[in-house]
C-alpha cells in the first residue's frame, strides 16, 4: 500500500470523526429505541457522513460503500421521520384552526400515524442491520 499523504490522512480523519458520531447514535438507539429522538439523530448523522464522503471521495478509500450504507440508513428511517414531522406541523396548525379545518387535519393525522407505525419496524431493523455497519 502506498504511503498516505497529508491530504488523504486529513480527509480520512474527518470522515472517521463522522463515522464515530454516527456509530455512537446507533449504539444509543440499539440500547433503548426511542423513535422520535433517535430517528432524527440517526438521519442527520448519516447525512453528515454522506456529505463528508461525497466532498472527499477522491481521497477516501471505500467511499461508495460508505455512501451507499448511509443512504440506505436514511431511506429506511425516512418514513417514520416524515410522519413525525408532518404530524407535529399539523398539530401546530390545529391549534389555530376552526372545526371544519380541524376535522380535515384529524383525518390526515390519522393516516400519517398509521404510516409512521407501519414504518417503525423498518427503521428499527435498519439500526440493527449489520450490513449497514460502517467500517473501513
Amino acid at each position, binding site marked *: 500500500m502506498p504511503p498516505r499523504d*497529508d*491530504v488523504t490522512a486529513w480527509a480520512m480523519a474527518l470522515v472517521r470523526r*463522522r463515522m464515530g458520531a454516527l456509530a455512537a447514535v446507533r449504539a444509543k438507539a440499539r440500547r433503548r429505541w426511542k423513535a422520535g429522538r433517535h430517528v432524527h439523530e440517526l438521519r442527520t448523522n448519516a447525512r*453528515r457522513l454522506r*456529505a463528508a464522503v461525497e466532498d472527499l471521495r*477522491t481521497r477516501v478509500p471505500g467511499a461508495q460503500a460508505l455512501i451507499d450504507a448511509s443512504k440506505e440508513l436514511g431511506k429506511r428511517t425516512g418514513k417514520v421521520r416524515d410522519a413525525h414531522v408532518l404530524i407535529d406541523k399539523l398539530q401546530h*396548525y390545529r391549534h389555530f384552526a376552526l372545526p371544519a*379545518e380541524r376535522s380535515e387535519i384529524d383525518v*390526515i393525522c390519522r393516516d400519517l400515524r398509521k404510516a409512521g407505525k407501519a414504518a417503525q419496524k423498518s427503521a428499527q431493523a435498519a439500526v440493527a442491520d449489520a450490513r449497514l455497519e460502517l467500517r473501513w
Partner: protein
Amino acid sequence: MKARPIPLQDVRGPQDAMRRILSVRFAEVLAQAPALSQPRPEPLHDLRIACKRLRYAVELFADALPECKSAERRLSQLQDELGEAHDCDVLLQFAKQSGAQHLAKRVLRDRERRVKRAANLWERAFARKGAFSSLIGLTGLGAALT
C-alpha cells in the same frame, strides 16, 4: 439534485482542498438561488439540498475556518425555513388528496411566509460584512451579489 464531484487529486494540502470543496458547494447554492423567486417546489427543494451540503462542508472544516461560523449559522437558518417550506409542499399533496381545502389554504400561506423569510435571510447574507462575507472572500464567488 446530485452532488457535483470534486476532484482533489491535485490539491496542495488540506487548506487548498477546503477552498476547493467550499467553492464547488457554494457555486451549487448560488446556481439554485433563483428558486427563491419561483413558486415551484422542485427548484426550492434543490436549493435546500445545496444549502445543506454547503452547511455540512462548512461545519466539517469549522476548526480550521472559524471565520465561517456566521455563514454556518445563516445556512442553518436558511435550511430551517426551506425545510418548513418543503414540509408545506408535502402537506399540500396530502391536503389535495383528501380534499382538505381549508388546510390547503393555510399551508399555502405558511409556505409563502417561509419562502419570503428565506429570501430575506439570503439577501442579508450578501450585505457588506454579511454572513457570507467569509465564504465570498475564501472562494471568490458571489461578490456580484453584494
